[in-house]
């Protein structure tokens, strides 16, 4: 230890940064402020937090909110002081590791050697045992037994009469791999923040876009454009429980379709580092002018069918007849009122799309009927069967769009962490020295060894070694 006075300012800062005390303080600060951040809702309208604060502070809630807000607690995880805490945590981790690494590195690099008799004595783990048989036989049986308990590379030193081996020397570095992994993850996070973007894109069926909207409402241009050909929700049998949301997307670059993919919630589209996630969807009746009712029309008795795609109030021919059909009304979700038997729209999502079709012959209306997409029994009409496939164009797909060039660093960090933790907890550096000597026709065996972790298991292994000798 150096004298306090002779320490320069650099040394002093270094000492602070290597201290575990600082780590504890930072751990605690991050935890406590994080807890506050989970209690106060983040990035929401002020009213929601004020309402919650009123329960605790009563009338002074708005004032309390003002203070909390000014301190950054309503968008805490992006506030300068929280990022500063994370930064100090990282620096502390680096310096701490650097401070101790050289010593451990040396340990990890230096292979096991025979040891001096005095040191050997201090590391003896079992009382001396005597075995029958010649020295050479004992040496080879000890070697074989060592291999049996997992020491694959057994060395013999004739001069000292030691048979020695070690295992898991590099596991000593596991801790550092773990610490490094935390830094990699943080670096990945920073890279993503500075060189990536994050936004949202709402596309109607048939729509194309070449830019997205960021959180603050500004536009972020893309190097290519995306088109949504179709969006669809499927449901579990007769329920309104959604089974899947899918969008058929097409990437267009230089007027060429370069990629087509159907995305769903856990299966995004990736192109040139930009990823499109299925995030939401909505129904927009304003787009009905551009929409198409897609139907399959089967003429009475005939097996063949015809695909029909018409807009609202447009007519189509029913094949094999002189009848014309026309969609005059529609609903995204038709339900039947149990009491009155009347139809009504029960949701503003396309849960159960339906078209109201008017049939006419020579300009005279002869029949009117609702056709429901999810109920085949409604498809039968006096003039053949009409299956409603889709009301195309009124649904929007909501896509979360992200470019994160740092994500590979985060994944690499995760991998390092898994490896590091495995090494730190489930591996240990075990060293063993067995001294074999022949005295007065008797062969004696003495076992010395050490393990830096999981000593009980090491002990059991040595037990099995000595027993079989």
């Amino acid at each position, binding site marked *: 230890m150096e004298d306090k006075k002779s320490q320069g300012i650099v040394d002093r800062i270094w000492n602070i940064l290597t201290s*575990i005390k600082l*780590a*504890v303080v930072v*751990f605690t600060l*991050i*935890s406590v402020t*994080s*807890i506050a*951040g*989970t*209690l106060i*809702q*983040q990035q929401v309208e002020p009213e929601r937090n004020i309402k919650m604060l009123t329960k605790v502070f009563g009338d002074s809630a708005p004032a309390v909110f003002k203070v909390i807000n000014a301190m950054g607690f309503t968008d805490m*995880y992006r506030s300068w002081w929280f990022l500063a805490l994370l930064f100090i945590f990282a620096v502390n981790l680096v310096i701490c590791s650097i401070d101790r690494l050289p010593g451990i590195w040396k340990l990890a690099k230096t292979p096991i050697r025979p040891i001096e008799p005095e040191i050997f004595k201090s590391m003896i783990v079992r009382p001396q045992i005597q075995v029958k048989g010649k020295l050479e036989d004992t040496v080879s049986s000890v070697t074989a037994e060592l291999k049996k308990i997992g020491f694959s590379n057994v060395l013999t030193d004739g001069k000292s009469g030691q048979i020695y081996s070690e295992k898991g020397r590099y596991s000593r570095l596991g801790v550092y791999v773990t610490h490094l992994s935390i830094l990699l993850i943080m670096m990945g*996070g920073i890279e993503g923040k500075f060189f990536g973007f*994050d936004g949202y894109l709402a596309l109607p069926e048939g729509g194309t876009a070449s830019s997205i909207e960021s959180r603050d409402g500004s536009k972020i241009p893309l190097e290519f454009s995306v088109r949504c050909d179709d969006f669809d929700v499927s449901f*579990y049998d007769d329920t309104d*429980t*959604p*089974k*899947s*949301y899918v969008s058929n997307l097409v990437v267009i670059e230089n007027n060429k379709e370069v990629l087509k993919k159907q995305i*769903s*919630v*856990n*299966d*995004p589209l990736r192109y040139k580092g930009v*990823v499109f*996630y*299925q*995030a939401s969807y909505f129904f927009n009746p304003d787009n009905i002018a551009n929409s198409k009712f897609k139907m399959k029309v089967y003429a009475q008795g005939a097996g063949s069918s015809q695909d029909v795609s018409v807009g609202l109030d447009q007519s189509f021919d029913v094949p094999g007849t002189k009848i014309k059909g026309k969609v005059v009304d529609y609903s995204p979700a038709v339900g039947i009122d149990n009491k009155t038997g009347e139809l009504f729209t029960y949701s503003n999502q396309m849960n159960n799309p339906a078209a109201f079709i008017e049939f006419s012959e020579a300009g005279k209306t002869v029949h009117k009927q609702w056709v429901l997409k999810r109920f085949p029994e409604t498809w039968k009409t006096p003039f053949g069967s009409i299956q409603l496939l889709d009301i195309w164009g009124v649904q929007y797909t909501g896509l*979360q*769009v*992200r470019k994160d060039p740092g*994500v590979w660093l*985060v*994944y690499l960090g*995760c991998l390092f*962490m*898994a490896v590091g*933790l*495995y090494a730190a*907890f*489930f591996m240990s550096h075990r060293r063993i020295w067995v001294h074999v000597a022949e005295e007065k026709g008797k062969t004696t065996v003495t076992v010395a060894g050490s393990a830096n972790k999981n000593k009980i298991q090491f002990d059991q292994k040595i037990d099995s070694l000595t027993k079989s000798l």
Partner: protein
Amino acid sequence: MDSSQLFGIATIAYILAMVAYIAYLAFKNSTIGSIATTITIAGFVSHTIAFFVRTAEFLEVGQMGIMRAIPLTNLYESLIFFVWCIILGYLVIEFKYKTKSFGAFITPIAGMTLAFIELSGIHKDIHPLVPALQSNWLLSHVTMSFLAYAAFAISFATAMMYLAVTTEKKKDGAYIFWTTTLGVFITILAAMCIDFFAFKIAASRPESFIKSYLFKATFRSSSGIVVLLSTIGLGAIIYAVYNYGHILKKVITSFNLSKDVLDDLTYKSIAVGFPVFTLGGLIFGAVWADQAWGRYWSWDPKETWSLITWFVYAFFLHARYLRGWKGQKIAIVAVVGFVSTIFTYLGVNLLLTGLHSYGAQ
């Protein structure tokens, strides 16, 4: 037989086992001990079969293949699995350490959790998977998280026992700490019982979200008097545990568990739980969030609480490894870690709002 009947059998078995283990401790009769173990194993077998039966039932409803039918998709199923992990962990300890003394502590945790399921009115229906949960990460993320929670629960039990066995005086900080913690746990369970009687019987719709009625009959009541009374109740229970803690201590001491074994078990459970939690809970969770939402970390309350829990256990390991902390100090950290774990698992869902709607029903 359907899965809920089989789970019911397991519940009854664990409660009987709890009684048997306590009787075993009281009479030290090896026949009673064997009976306790047999009942636990029988319960465990029934529990395991129930798990498979529910998977089959799920398969029929979901129709998405076996990998999407593992019943780990809501709070009810996750709690059931948590209990399964605890019992498995306990049986491993019983056979490895050849001691039945922990039975009297672990089976109550299992019984209490199952009682919690009944009391909280969590609904037990099978729901087909919503799109967000249709991921292969669901299985690894959730199973590993619960394995870790179970390991932490065991470390909590051993750490509490350690504290009970080693504290001498009522003025000891450690004594106050463990009796208060136990008091708070008992109060929370009692408050849930009160909720159960106040709402489940009165309410016509028991399936209404727990979130909306949890503690509403006590601490979150609209009546100030009820809140005051509840707080007094909390104080009274804590005081009672504090005052009669020595009786518990005597009981536990009579098991002849060496405190070193308790200390070692606390460390070992955490040394197993921590890497599993890191990999399954944090890393796989992040990867899944990245796949599904496009962000690996959003600081939503569940994620944040996982991180806090992770910090506490990281602190535990550093304190032990670097500072050589042993005994009471480290046991307290283990208890704090588990309190944080419970909050991550249940508190966040029941009390806070966030993205992880999973488990909220």
